[in-house]
């Protein structure tokens, strides 16, 4: 080897030596590292609409109520509350001595201001519908649509510093589900008035009222949070720092978890779930979330006006095989639409649920023939789905089953999410691979969405359903309301305007050193209830 190339090889060797000489990483164990998937849209608590950023928000802001580690309602900023006998007025009593993170006194009006800002059209928030649709607060809709400007017209008021009163137009026993830090974060007016919405990403001036304060925000990278010493329950907050990492790529997130860079992941790669469950079962945390998948039929198309055909298509889907062997995302097969999110709701009797798959397929074949289709005259349809891995697998699996059981010829058309959303209203589909994320863990959020009056996109005409839902909406105690909702759900399911498929789970890997993790359907896992060993 010549002298010149010797120099060059030396260069290469020195690069290698540099690589070899590096020590193993040292980790600060007072920090909880959590993955949040793709980056949050906004850290503005009145605008943020992302499930992932909701974790950050729940750590930074406390609502009137809070959710414990298994998603149950516990007192938050309010120590107690009561509803009027007609279920139309809720009165919340705040704790004594509440403070913002900068030491300012936290008063009832701060919560009123938070809701007002969410509804204010100038805020540009999509979240206002929680207050005019999911529950109907007096005056909320007119304020959100900009028809009325007077803040006094809103049925949320603060008669004194420690009392928040909320007036509803219709009883809503699920009201409390919408009173947490994600839905009703209070507004610290002095800092907001001075710095505007930019304050929410400005740790130097941001003031919060939750268990943590935001210390550092790096777009596309992370949000670092530190324990808030002025939080009323600071004595019970065990982890000093929480770092939320953007984990866009699920495969990279898994490797970062395995390398110890992340303690709690946002998701688990579908093709790794089985291996991980075998290797480290205790670390795999999979539990139902508030997302349901279903295949909607286009009722404006002649073929789908036939209910026998719709039912045949629904029956021909072997949901167990589909989710367990094809999608493999641990989703829970379902025949209902509002059930499975809370054990208190029993739902209606569903004939399909008690049949064997063999019986379902036999009935499907009969109905398919009755609708006028057969080997010589097969149904030809398109299914529009998103390009996400599980949605594609699910649509292709369903197409396969329709082909096998009925001989239906299905063309699956995967498209990116924005185009998929547009396609829904354009109606350019026979079958729409749909999914819906509920606003809380209960049947009503799903059933209310299907009201023809609230979602015209399904072209479903059913005054009986609207009437049954109106009937349920009059009831203020939960058990009798659930009975009424089950009646409404029966009307919905009996029309087979869609085939319910599965309840999507939350999938997380949680390090054994993290204690206090629980299954929360609505996905609330506040860091304040966790501890590190």
């Amino acid at each position: 080897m010549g002298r010149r190339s010797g120099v060059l090889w030396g260069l290469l060797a020195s690069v290698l030596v540099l690589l070899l000489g590096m020590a193993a990483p040292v980790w600060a164990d007072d920090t909880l590292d959590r993955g949040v998937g793709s980056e949050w849209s906004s850290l503005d608590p009145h605008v943020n609409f992302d499930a992932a950023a909701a974790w950050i928000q729940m750590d930074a802001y406390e609502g009137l109520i809070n959710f414990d580690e298994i998603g149950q309602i516990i007192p938050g900023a309010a120590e107690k509350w009561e509803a009027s006998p007609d279920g139309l007025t809720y009165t919340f009593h705040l704790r004594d001595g509440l403070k913002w993170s900068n030491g300012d006194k936290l008063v009832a009006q701060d919560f009123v201001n938070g809701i007002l800002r969410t509804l204010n059209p100038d805020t540009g928030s999509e979240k206002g519908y929680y207050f005019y649709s999911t529950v109907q607060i007096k005056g909320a809709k007119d304020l959100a649509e900009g028809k009325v400007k007077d803040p006094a017209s809103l049925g949320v008021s603060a008669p004194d510093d420690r009392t928040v009163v909320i007036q509803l137009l219709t009883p809503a026993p699920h009201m409390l589900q919408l009173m947490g830090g994600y839905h009703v974060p209070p507004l610290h007016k002095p800092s907001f008035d001075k710095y505007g919405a930019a304050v929410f990403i400005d740790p130097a001036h941001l003031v919060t009222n939750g268990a943590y304060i935001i210390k550092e925000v790096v777009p596309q990278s992370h949000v670092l949070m530190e324990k808030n010493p002025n939080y009323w329950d600071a004595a019970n907050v065990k982890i000093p720092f929480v770092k939320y990492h953007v984990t866009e790529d699920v495969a990279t997130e898994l490797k970062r978890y395995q390398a110890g860079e992340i303690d709690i992941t946002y998701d688990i790669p579908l093709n790794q779930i089985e291996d991980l469950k075998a290797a480290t079962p205790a670390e795999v945390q999979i539990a139902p979330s508030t997302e349901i998948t279903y295949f909607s039929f286009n009722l404006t198309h002649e073929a789908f006006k036939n209910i026998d055909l719709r039912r045949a298509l629904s029956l021909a889907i072997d949901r167990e095989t589909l989710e367990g062997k094809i999608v493999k995302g641990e989703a829970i097969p379902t025949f209902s639409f509002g059930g499975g999110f809370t054990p208190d709701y029993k739902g209606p009797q569903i004939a399909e649920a008690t049949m064997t798959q063999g019986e379902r397929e036999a009935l499907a074949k009969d109905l398919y023939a009755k609708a006028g289709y057969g080997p010589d005259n097969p149904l030809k349809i398109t299914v529009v789905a998103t390009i996400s891995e599980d949605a594609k697998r699910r649509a292709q699996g369903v197409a396969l089953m329709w082909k096998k059981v009925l001989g239906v010829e299905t063309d699956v058309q995967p498209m990116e999410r924005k185009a998929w959303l547009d396609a829904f209203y354009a109606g350019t589909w026979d079958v729409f691979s749909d999914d819906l994320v509920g606003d809380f863990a209960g049947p009503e959020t799903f059933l209310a969405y299907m009201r023809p009056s609230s979602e015209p996109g399904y072209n479903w005409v059913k005054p009986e359903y609207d009437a049954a839902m109106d009937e349920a909406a009059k009831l203020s105690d939960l058990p009798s309301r659930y009975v009424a909702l089950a009646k409404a759900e029966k009307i919905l399911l009996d029309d087979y305007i869609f085939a319910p498929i599965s309840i999507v789970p939350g999938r997380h890997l949680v390090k054994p050193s993290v204690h206090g993790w629980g299954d929360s359907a609505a996905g609330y896992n506040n860091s304040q209830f966790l501890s590190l060993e």
Partner: protein
Amino acid sequence: MLRFLGKRLWEGMVTLAALVVATFFFMRLAPGGPFSKNRKVSADVLEHIKASFHLDEPVWMQFGRYVWGLMHLDFGPSLRFRDYSVGDLIAAGLPYSLTIGFWAIVIAALVGVALGVIGALRRNGAADYLAGTVGVIGIAVPIFVIGPLAQVVFALKLAWVPVGGSDQGWRSLVLPVVVLSLPNIAYISRLTRSSMIEVMRENYVRTARSKGIGGRRVLVGHVLKGALLPVIAYLGPATAGIITGSILIETIFAVPGIGRHFVDAALNRDYPLVMGITLLYGGLLILFNIATDLVRGWLDPKVRGHG
């Protein structure tokens, strides 16, 4: 020289203007919009949100508004990342992409040229075959295979460097820089080798040798100077591409650069961000091409005359 520069800059401006017009209008042909996210929001409320970003105006008016903003160096607000303007996002991400891109280019140029020179001097020797093999692997094996493999070996098994992220200083840079430089090392070494072999046969090299100039001086002063021309022609546009970030590298190694915006902004229909990123990339590409021409003109008298 100044006239050449002025002319090229003017041409660059015209190209950028055409790019702005084409991107702005083509982007809006794609189905879906930035706020077709939630089907539950009342139509009136959605209209108001759109109006606050002027998305309710006719497209030509939006275009006028955008161009007016550009003249004031305002790239507009991001529609997906509501807390930031497009300028903020580029300012936050570009340093990461620049750092990784800069080191990747430096390593690629040094190692690539070195391998190429060795290959050309010791043709069909062991070093040449080694360089050739590295070259073929670098070109043929995609980043999304090498990247995860490198993570498993160097981060998971050996724990020398982190898997990803940006919170461990220079240690976070090692894997993305090395993996990003690999395909470029491969290209540059192949280019250098073939160009060297060609130049070594040139008459002026033979003349220099016959004049009795030492082997080393001929190699550096004559052969390498000539042989590097195609490499520099490649480096110009490649640098623009590399320093604006690689979507694959940034996704695999969780780097908070701007490369991810190239694809994500389009998927999210974040119109101003798509425009900002396209303009940045287009502008850099034009600048680096001009710089390349200047360097080539300096190295090669033939180019200078035809500016």
